[in-house]
């Protein structure tokens, strides 16, 4: 999704928020690494001047992506290194762990995208930074 520099076309920052969440999901599902670079670039260029909604989604997705890298790459490498490549139990732990961790991160991203589409902020559980003041959070139960 193209991101306009003109704040008149996206005054609430919703498009930028949706782009950030989409890049987070793309990093997990379609183009690992490449989508993260695009997200990091977007964060560097737009975060400071973005409206609260977009700024929150940019920082949440960047932080969650870094954690995702740690959880999916580093931890899996550790499991493989410590457990050994030719051990059955390594593969049981590794596949179960990867599937669970990856799908949890994807579901969080889906919720984040749904929030962005609704013009609301979303804090990633455990790995997300606290939300700034003035961030729309929608109807509370």
């Amino acid at each position: 999704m193209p991101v306009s520099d003109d704040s008149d076309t996206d005054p609430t920052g919703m498009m930028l928020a949706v782009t950030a969440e989409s890049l987070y999901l793309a990093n997990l599902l379609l183009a690992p690494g490449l989508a993260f670079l695009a997200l990091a670039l977007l964060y560097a260029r737009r975060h400071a001047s973005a409206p609260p909604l977009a700024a929150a989604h940019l920082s949440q997705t960047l932080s969650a992506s870094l954690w995702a890298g740690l959880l999916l790459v580093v931890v899996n490498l550790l499991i493989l290194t410590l457990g050994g490549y030719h051990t059955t139990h390594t593969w049981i732990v590794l596949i179960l762990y990867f599937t669970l961790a990856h799908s949890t991160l994807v579901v969080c991203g889906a919720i984040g995208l749904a929030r962005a589409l609704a013009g609301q902020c979303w804090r990633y559980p455990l790995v997300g930074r606290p939300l700034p003041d003035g961030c729309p959070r929608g109807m509370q139960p």
Partner: protein
Amino acid sequence: MQYKSQAVAKPYFIAAIGLFVGQIVFGLVMGLQYVWGDFLFPEIPFNVARMVHTNLLIVWLLFGFMGAAYYLVPEESERELQSPGLAILMFWIFLIAGALTILGYLLVPYSTLADLTGNALLPTMGREFLEQPTITKIGIVVVALAFLYNIGMTILKGRKTAVSLVMLIGLAGLAVLFLFSFYNPDNLVKDKFYWWWVVHLWVEGVWELILGSILAFVLIKTTGVDREVIEKWLYVIIAMTLITGIIGTGHHYYWIGTPDYWQWWGSVFSALEPIPFFMMTVFAFNMVNRRRRNHPNKAAMLWALGTAVMAFLGAGVWGFLHTLSPVNFYTHGSQITAAHGHMAFYGAYVMIVLTIISYAMPMLRGREAANSNRSQVLEMWSFWLMTVSMVFITLFLTGAGILQVYLQRFSDNPQPFMVVQDKVALFYWARELAGVVFLVGLVVYIASFFVGSRDAEAVTSTAE
């Protein structure tokens, strides 16, 4: 309840829940037989317990879908049901035929049941999930035709909405595709090829349309979001379902004697099958986030969100796990398939039926919109007990599957099937334990219909 004839949904929902209990009991029996081979033998052999477990699942989900249609179609069409009497008659025919079939499985040997029911005249028995005697299959067709007439006429004479039309297409597809259960060629490749037209095109095709329409209906009612917004999502979701799911049937054609091109078609299209489920998750959360009111039936909202997430995990993620042809070469028919089957059926279809029951039952029992707080708290407990235990069932079966594949098919010294079964027994015990927790959750669910039934109704929050 806006229309009196919606009341016919109630017996369908009650029967669905009753048969659900039967399914879980037989699941536990079978789970125990995995680790205690002669448990209840010869009274209930493993193959019979498995047949009852899977057949009850299909039958109670069909009861749930029919109940859902009878509840939502009058409201969508803004008119009474074409023939409530016919709906009640078909209910009893379906219930009695279903009960007799299950009793047949349990009381006489399968081959005797085939002889007794005249299978030789039109042989259709003996295939997984389609074990029903031919006469039962004919009964299902009759019930389906009467049901479609009832629902179809109500829709055609009333207001036509995307929700009711998608549901009608799903139900018509369900009935038409079931006709392939009567095609039983001698050629085993052809037999399997068309068998999947019933099994796969039901659960990864037309049933998803039914799921989408029920979810859309409940979200329209509980969130107050504009129907147009929800219908646009529904169109895109069902389009993606059909685009990916129809050719995605190819992931069943890898190793059954079909041409090699199915390896590619099956892999590519079924790898796309998680997309509609992912969209459903975003859709459900987006609608709840954009809601204009806080509906008092919080339990129904929880089921609606739960079905979206669990369907994505079970059908989408766990399906993708073993859908690519080079992976499926090793995992085909292992416990990984069982893990996927359990979570996908629970997430996509069990939970959507429980969603519509949760939404509709308070009104069917005379409430304005929702049960009492006490009842809802209990229902939400049952949601978490069943959902968390199903996650564990899936994880334990996945662990068993990985070990099974490694020892039996992947290692340098492959071991025989039964030797490997002994080695994965720990996972089976853990799965059985999780199954017991699931049963506890189901008991709590049933208790939620009785506890707090005399308390005041939960209050509607005011809209912002």
